């Protein structure tokens, strides 16, 4: 790999080139899925390639290839420079990178049990057992269970002298059951929806989830939802479980605190942000108990790493502190534009993609008590669990979420089940209405593995830690079909 990295950096060393880097990535992915008694997916993919990024007179050029040969590295580097020269035409403001430490290091994510050494048959046995339990009720017409594993080895070198080798192993698993009847279909998922739980971890993550142990409960809840009444409409106190809070954090705090969005770089696609830089240190984002902390060092997080794709060391910093906006997700480019050091949030989906600012592991800090304490403290309200749908406007203000299951709360007790729960709000008003957050015992990191951003589109994963929390007078029951 050293030869290839030297080839790129030597080839890029020419007049006008301010900066160059090369990322060589080798990634192995395994996906296992069982759907309603048959194999849904069984894939073992070996991916390798490299990307060269060049800053020529303050303008970016990037090219990538899956052919790991010296001649191809030369050709791709030439192409990156040629592209950067086009970007530099008529440029009025040069891109500058924040000054960061030059690093030579190796970092490997901790793994207790290498998922690639667990026999495929053992993984499938777990999934088929879940599938059997889910389909024991005749109303369950779709049972889907899956596991995914990846190991990414990354060699990174820059013209500034940074040399980093990094290995990250990720695992994930989850399932869902869909009941059909009464002219309706209802789905329950475990431990969360959209692929289940995921993290930077070995197979120990899968073993700790209690997948088989929860299958019958999930199945029965899906079937019970078919006969449940619809979510009532109105304004009520709303308690959200941790997995739903995770997506709420992601959409209403994560994306608007990406500084590239704030600066308009995503205007044509994902949108911009209401969290403009003039608001830092005084804008009230939420109630005084709302503390949102970004952390790429937290064990198990999907975005946990040693260094980002700019070679900046992983770190922890506040985005919202006691309800006040304090910071952003940044890379070297936007940090420099804002006059600060990078927070190390530069990430690319793979070798074929240019890195961009990404949400990292962003978590709501725990409060006190348990979910049951919050329920006991609620006279009239609703409890919603597990995300079903999500939507938020291009400035990240008006959001609407649907969940899989809800419960009515009356006089401090969880009462009847409700289906199609949904709620709508405006970001700072919603977080401003947060008046209870459960304590550390209920706090957990939730992996979001399907975050899309950028053109060409890139998918990346991150985790959001949360415990159940309560929000006052939220608009619920948006639509009854």
């Amino acid at each position, binding site marked *: 790999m050293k030869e290839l990295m030297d080839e790129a950096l030597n080839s890029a060393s020419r007049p006008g080139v301010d900066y160059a880097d090369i990322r060589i990535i080798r990634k192995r992915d395994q996906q296992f*899925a069982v759907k309603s008694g*048959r194999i849904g*997916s069984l*894939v*073992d*993919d*070996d*991916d*390798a*390639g490299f990307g060269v990024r060049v800053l020529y007179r303050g303008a*970016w*050029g990037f*090219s*990538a290839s*899956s*052919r*790991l040969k010296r001649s191809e590295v030369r050709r791709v580097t030439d*192409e990156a420079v040629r*592209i950067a020269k*086009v*970007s530099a*035409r*008529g440029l*009025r403001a040069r891109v500058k990178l924040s000054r960061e430490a030059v690093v030579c290091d190796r970092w490997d994510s901790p793994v207790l049990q290498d998922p690639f050494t667990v026999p*495929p048959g053992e993984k*499938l046995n777990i999934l088929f057992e879940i599938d059997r339990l889910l389909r024991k009720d005749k109303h369950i*017409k*779709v049972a889907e269970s899956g596991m995914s594993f990846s190991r990414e080895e990354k060699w990174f070198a820059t013209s500034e002298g940074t040399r980093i080798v990094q290995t990250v192993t990720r695992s994930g698993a989850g399932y869902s059951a*869909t009941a059909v009847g009464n*002219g309706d*279909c209802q789905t329950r998922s475990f431990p969360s929806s959209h692929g289940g739980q995921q993290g930077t971890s070995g197979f120990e993550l899968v073993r700790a989830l209690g997948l088989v142990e929860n299958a019958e409960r999930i199945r029965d809840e899906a079937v019970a939802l078919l006969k449940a009444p619809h979510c009532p409409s109105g304004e009520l106190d709303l308690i959200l479980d941790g997995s739903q809070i995770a997506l709420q954090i992601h959409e209403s705090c994560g994306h608007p605190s990406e500084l590239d969005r704030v*600066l*308009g770089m*995503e*205007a*044509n*696609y994902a949108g911009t942000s*209401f969290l403009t830089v003039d608001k830092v240190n005084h804008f009230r984002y939420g109630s005084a108990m709302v503390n949102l902390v970004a952390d790429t060092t937290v064990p198990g997080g999907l975005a946990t790493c040693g260094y980002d794709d700019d070679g900046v060391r992983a770190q922890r910093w506040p985005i919202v502190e006691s309800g006040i906006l304090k910071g952003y997700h940044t890379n070297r480019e936007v940090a420099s534009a804002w006059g600060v050091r990078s927070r190390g949030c530069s990430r690319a989906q793979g070798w*074929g*993609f*240019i890195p961009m600012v990404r949400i990292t592991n962003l978590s709501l800090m725990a409060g006190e008590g348990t979910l049951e304490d919050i329920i006991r403290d609620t006279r009239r309200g609703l409890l919603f669990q597990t995300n079903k*749908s999500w*939507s938020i*406007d*291009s*400035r990240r*203000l*008006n959001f*609407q979420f649907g969940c899989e299951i809800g419960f009515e709360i009356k006089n401090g007790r969880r009462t009847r089940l409700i289906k*199609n729960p*949904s709620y*709508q709000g*405006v970001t*700072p*008003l919603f977080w401003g209405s947060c008046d209870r957050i459960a304590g550390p015992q209920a706090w957990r990191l939730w992996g979001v593995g399907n975050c899309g951003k950028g*053109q*060409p589109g890139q998918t990346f994963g991150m985790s959001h830690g949360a415990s159940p929390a309560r929000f006052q007078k939220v*608009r619920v029951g*948006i*639509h009854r079909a």
Partner: protein
Amino acid sequence: MHKQKIFMIMERVLQLLGRGAQAEVMLLAQEGALTRFAGNRITQNVASHTVDLSIRIQEGGRIGRAGTRAVDEASIKNMIERAKELSAASRKTRGLLPLAGTRKYGALPVARGRDSLSTPEERGSAVQLILAKARHVRLEAAGIVSKDKGILALMNTRGLRAQHKFMSGRVSITMNRGGASGWAEYSNRTVALKDAGRTAERAAEKCLKSQNPRSVDPGPYTVVLEPACVGEIFQFMAWYGFGALAFQEGTSFLTGRMGKRIFSPRVTIEDNVYHPLTQGFPFDFEGVPRERVSLIERGVARGLVHDRRTARAAHTRSTGHGLAEPNEVGPLPLNLVMQKGGSRLEDMIRDTRRGILVTHFHYTNMMNPRELVLTGLTRDGTYLIERGRIARPVRNLRFTESMLKAFSNVEAVGREQVYTEGFFGGGYVAPAIKIHNFQFTSQAEEEKPL
């Protein structure tokens, strides 16, 4: 990569596999390039060259799939071994179909025009033209100019050989001034410099018309939805209902409604890769030729798209809409086309006493698949129509609406069809439509101090 080299690589994979097992080899060789701009400057300018090789092995009712980006002998052998290992560990799949045999494929419409915007310099010129048009009217532009081309090839041990060369270009532009924006997009197999210029002019016009928007109350409105909105709705219809697997599982919005009138008689929808505006492949990922399938005929639910598995369950034949096996999704229509009507967009506006004109939607998502309830927001050009004229721009609105109801309330269909790329792949050809009683449930972009 040349066609001959691609088939040589694939032949070599099957040779190395040896006799006995059934196998299917797929190779996608692709070159993609995209120039991205924002704040009236190029912010990202990228190119990539990829080769994606994969094999599906079926042995004794078991199945396994593996892939690699490298096509050297050692990497191919390693890929075969990994596929064999998975296949051996797999359980026997009941009713596993043998691989598809040899087929003949229909010809797709030939792309007209020169292969332009393929070089960084050409894309750079297109961006400079867009930025010049933005600066001329004191707007800020953000967007992309992109070009993709490549070849997809399939080969299997039953003698099937399929290959398709593809090319697509896209210009997408958002113009902005003071928080008010306008958007326009153009996508075709061949996109030229003049298309970039025209698209920039449309986005600029939208933006200039969007200045100083005021709020309107949410509630039911007559809406005129431009083609991009219809295309966005279509991708949810495609994923949640027009595929036979969702129908057979009972989760489709068509479940229990086949043969019934579910939309306005003005609505006719088919999946048709042979339409001149679509950009798909003439075969599916099992190598079955894509057929033209009538899905909604004058408002009546008429059909579904099938892969070989759902076709067997329904005692019919595959329509050529399968994904790579094994998969959990089932067949998908990736080239939906809505039949055009007779109205011009201006006619729809002129015939509206009070309504909303929507340029495109943002962050649409499914709330209830059986009732096809979607939520999403308007974006980059939302205008109040009063007494047959565009009265003023309005702030964005959130809709929450059953598309079963909305498409039953279609009053007029546009006579110009436009291709829109799908978020999840594929693309949709749709005209503008006018709908009455479309439910907006809240205003977007409220930012009140706490």
